[in-house]
Structures are given as C-alpha cells and as structure tokens.
C-alpha cells in the first residue's frame, strides 16, 4: 500500500511536468507580456522590472529557473500583486475553497447517497420517479444558474441567509455556496447510487445472504453497502475536477475570496506565475484525488490488487 502510494506520487511528476510545460509555453506563446506598454511605463522602468522578474532572459532559461523554484516548492512572485508571492495568494484562498468544496462533497455523498438508495429500494414508485426527475434536473442545471437563483430566493426575497460579502468566514456565509456547488453532485450521485444499489441487490451473493436468514440490516450494511460504493469511488476523480470548475463560478457569484477568482484576472493580466501556479495546484489536486480514489477502491474491493 505504502509502496504503491509512493510510486504513484513519483509517477505524478511527469504529469505535473507536462502541465507546467504546456501552461508555460501557452502563456509565452501568446502576444503581450505582463508589463506591456498598456500601463504606460517608461521603457527603462519596464526593462528593469522585466529584468527583476527575469523576463529578459531566453525562454528556456526562464523555464528551467521556474522548474528549479517549483522543485523547492516556490511558485514565484505574483506579477500583478506586487510584493506578494503566489504561495501566499494560494495559502489565503485555499482554505475558503477547501471548506466549501469539502462541505459540498460531504453533502453530495450523504444526500445523494440517501436519495439514490431510497429510490432503488422503492424502485418504480412515485418516490423513485420523482427523485430521478429531480436528479436529471440537477445535472442539467448549471451552477451559475442555481447560484444566482438561490441568492434571489433565499437571500434577497426571504432574507434567510447572507448572499455573499465574506466577512471573516462565518458559517452562514458558506451555506448557500456549498449547496449551490453540491447540487449537481447530489443529483449525479443519486443516479449513480440508484443504479449500483439495484444491481447489487439483484446479485447472486445477496440472494445467498437472504438464504442464510440474515436480517435486512445485516444484508444492507455488511453485504450490499461496499459493492454499491465502487462506482461512487470511481466518480471521485472526475468530481474533483468538476468541483474546481464549479468553485470558480461560485466564488464569482458569491464574491468569495478563493483561488478561482484570482485565476481569471491573472490570465487577463498575464500574471504568468499565478496562472501556472494555480494550474499546477489544480493538476496536483486532480492527481491526488485520483490516487485517493484508487486507494479507496483497493480498500473496498479485495479483488483489486495495487500494482
């Protein structure tokens, strides 16, 4: 298990390298630079600033310099926020995203799981059709439609919850963003769990368990639960990528000080280091969650051998 994890983490290095290289080349291939004439600087000042950030060096040297810094965990200084490092910006924003993201995932797992299993157990009932219609609706309604509508209903009209303006991060400010972010995943997980529960309950080994005279409680929790979870685990990897996208929207709608919001301004301002830094962070998170999914998979299913 440990050896596998270490090997997978080492195996992630080439992938991260691909990500860094792609991002680096893409940014530098584009016309314009971070300190272009648009800001009406004197040519000498622009030159000295570019020299300070090593932008005057040949591309390959900048690239190697960046890789060297990255290897030491230094994502470099931000170009648009002078005097602030990319590490600091991420350290500020990440807790916000992590809080909302984890709350959303938990919410999606608990609510989606319960709805899906319930639909499977009452297959063909009105509850089943209702929750599945809701699920397709949830999957089909984008975050940026749900989020403003939720603000309109719960904040503006009903005044139940605050809509935005993050002040020191009180929990009530997280409720609406987390729900908005979670909603498509609640729907997706509900569908997934319904399908896998139906499949597992029809499997021969559940019939064996019934033939053994085990009480329903034991059949569900001991015999059926783990196999129903496997599709859920495989969904974990893609889900994290979707959550990162969603968080960009949720942050901008609710005005939260997360990382995603910086990303677009960073791209607009040619803030190379911040763009690459956030991209690498996203890549690392996706890799990490895929690894986590595979470990969970092996933990749940004894037939899976980690190689």
């Amino acid at each position, binding site marked *: 298990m440990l050896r596998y994890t270490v090997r997978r983490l080492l195996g992630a290095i080439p992938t991260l390298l691909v990500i860094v290289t792609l991002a680096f080349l893409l940014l530098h291939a584009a016309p314009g630079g971070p300190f272009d004439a648009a800001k009406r600087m004197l040519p000498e000042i622009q030159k000295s600033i570019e020299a300070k950030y090593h932008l005057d060096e040949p591309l390959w040297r900048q690239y190697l310099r960046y890789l060297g810094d990255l290897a030491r965990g230094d994502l470099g200084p931000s170009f648009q926020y002078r005097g602030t490092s990319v590490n600091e910006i991420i350290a500020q924003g990440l807790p916000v995203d992590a809080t909302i993201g984890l709350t959303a995932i938990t919410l999606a797992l608990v609510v989606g799981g319960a709805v899906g299993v319930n639909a499977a157990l009452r297959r063909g009932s009105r509850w089943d059709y209702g929750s599945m219609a809701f699920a397709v609706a949830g999957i089909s309604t984008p975050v940026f439609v749900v989020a403003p509508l939720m603000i309109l209903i719960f904040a503006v009209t009903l005044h139940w919850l605050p809509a935005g303006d993050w002040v020191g991060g009180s929990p009530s400010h997280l409720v609406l963003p987390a729900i908005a972010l979670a909603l498509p995943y609640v729907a997706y997980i509900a569908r997934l769990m319904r399908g896998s529960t139906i499949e597992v309950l029809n*499997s*021969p*080994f559940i*019939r*064996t*368990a*019934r*033939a*053994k*005279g*085990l*009480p*329903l409680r*034991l059949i569900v929790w*001991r*015999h059926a639960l*783990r*196999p129903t979870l496997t599709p859920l685990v495989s969904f974990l990897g893609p889900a994290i990528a979707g959550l990162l996208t969603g968080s960009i929207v949720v942050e901008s709608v609710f005005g939260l000080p997360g990382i995603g919001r910086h990303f677009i301004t960073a791209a607009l301002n040619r803030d190379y280091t911040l763009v690459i830094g956030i991209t690498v962070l996203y890549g690392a998170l996706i890799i990490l969650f895929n690894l986590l999914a595979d470990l969970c998979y092996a933990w*749940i*299913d*004894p*037939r899976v051998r980690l190689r």
Partner: protein
Amino acid sequence: MSAPPPLRIRGLSVGYPSDHGAIQAVREVDLDVAAGEFLGIVGESGSGKTQLLLAILRLSAPHARLAGSIRYREQELLQLNVRALNQVRGNRISMVFQDPMTALNPYLRIGRQITEVLRVHRNVSGREAERRGIEMLESVHIPEGPRRMRQYPHELSGGMRQRVMIAMALIAEPEILLADEPSTALDVTVQAQILSLFQELRARTGTAIVLVTHDLGVIAEVADRVAVMYAGRIMEQAPIHELFAHPRHPYTEALQQSIPRIDAPRPTHLASIGGAPPNAAALPAGCAFAPRCIYRMPICESIDPPLIEAAPGHWKACHHQGPLGKLRSEAA
C-alpha cells in the same frame, strides 16, 4: 408408520406476470421431503426445478406470484413474516447455489461469511463461531482452516468455493439442505468429489438433502428418491431403483435413454428427445409433454393427466396405464 415428513409442499405454483400473459414456472407441485432422505429433482433447464427450490425459502424474484402451501413442520412458510422466515432460512432449511463464483460475497472474508450464519442463528461468541467454522471447513475437506478463514472467495478454486458454500449451509445443522445444481459449474472430477461429499455429510449429520440437477446420471449415483419435472410439473416420482427399473412416464424413459453408458451396448437409435420444451407462457392445453411424446394418444392433447400413485410410492402424471416397456414392444 414413520414420522410425518418435515417438509410438505402442496399445490405450489410460481408464476411471473409478463406482457405476453403469465409465465407459469411451477405448476401445482406436490412434494414431500422426509427426514434424512436424499431426494433428487431432475429436469431440463426451464423445467421449473430451480424456481421450485427458490420458492421453498421464498427467494423467488420480487414480482413472482406464489400460490399453494409449503409447510415446514408446524409452520406455513408462505404465510410467515420475514422475521420468522429468517429463523428457518439458513438455520432449519439452508441452500447451496449453482455458481459458487457469484454466490459468495466477493467483498467479505470466508470466515465472516461462514460464521455469520452461526452468529445470527445461535447465540455463540465470535471465538466459538470461529472454532466451529474451522471445524466445518475440515469436515468439507478444506485443510488449513485458520488460513482459509482469512481469505477472500477469489483466492480459492471453484471446487473449494463450493465446499465453502456447503460448509456455510451446514454450519447451523439444518434439517434440510437444498442444493441447486451444486456441481454443474465445476470440473467433472470436482463434481464427483462434491457429490460424494454430500453423501458423506448426510450420513454423518442426518440432514435431508434435496438435489436439483439436469443430469439423471448424477441422481442415479446418490439419491434415494427422484422427482422428474417437466414444464413446471412433477411428471413422475419414485424411489430411485423403482424409477430406473420401471419408468412409468415417457419423459423419464427418454431421459434415461439419453444417459450415455459405457457398460451397455450401443443403442440402436440415438435416444435424444425430439422437439423442444414448451414455451412456459403458452403451454399446450393437455399434457405439456404430449407434443414430444412417442406414446401420444388423443386424450393427451386435451386433458392434462393428474399425478396419481401407480404403485406404492410411485407417482406419475400420464394417461397410459401399466409399464411403458410393454407398450413400446406393442408399438414396434
């Protein structure tokens, strides 16, 4: 005479509603299982033999319609609530399935799957259950019990998995063991081992065994009594020697002739049964076997013959009177 049989099935029918009318998987079956006997149920696939077995423990698919009566001692199994039914399942009547590959839970250790039966039905400690589990593995000839208990099903061979299934079914010392083609999915040599294991275990524990198979040859080796099923009905029922010596139903006779024999001279004609089993959704009006029967009479096509006792302990559902051998020589 002897004590009343512990399991008495009367007029049991299993039907499945479908778009094209109800499918009658089991039709009006009467069957007794005596204490400690080895009963074979034989029939082609689709004859309803598995459906009959599943119905006894009420394991039929959720949309199945069950009618009739299944009495186990004082209890009517078809009327029992789930809690009381679970007291019977795995405890008084247990079951072994066809494919041990899929019938064992791949996610749980062997030990857990065996001992949980004891933990649920007997008030024993985990340690005691563990000990009994290892003992049980030994009695189905699986050595290294303690190690096997910690393994998962995929780490065992097919024959070994079926032994585990049998250990699981017998650990609570049930009165009746239902076995649905327990050796069909296995290699021929392993099949023979499993069958002799059944005989051995019955001799030791006194558990009655109901063995369902499509192979009359298998039954011939192990069973005391045989019931032959066709199109959801029991066509003939008799002690094993009686059935082989004097088959009274044309279908049984055809089945017998299709057993390949090394010791007998080559049959003059290939005794496969012509035609195909009837569609369970559209059964003929009379005897279901009539369209394939070489002794068919006009009455067979309009009236389904009832199951009657032709000789002591020998039941048959056929309009013909007397032994078939004589008929055949007449027909020839």
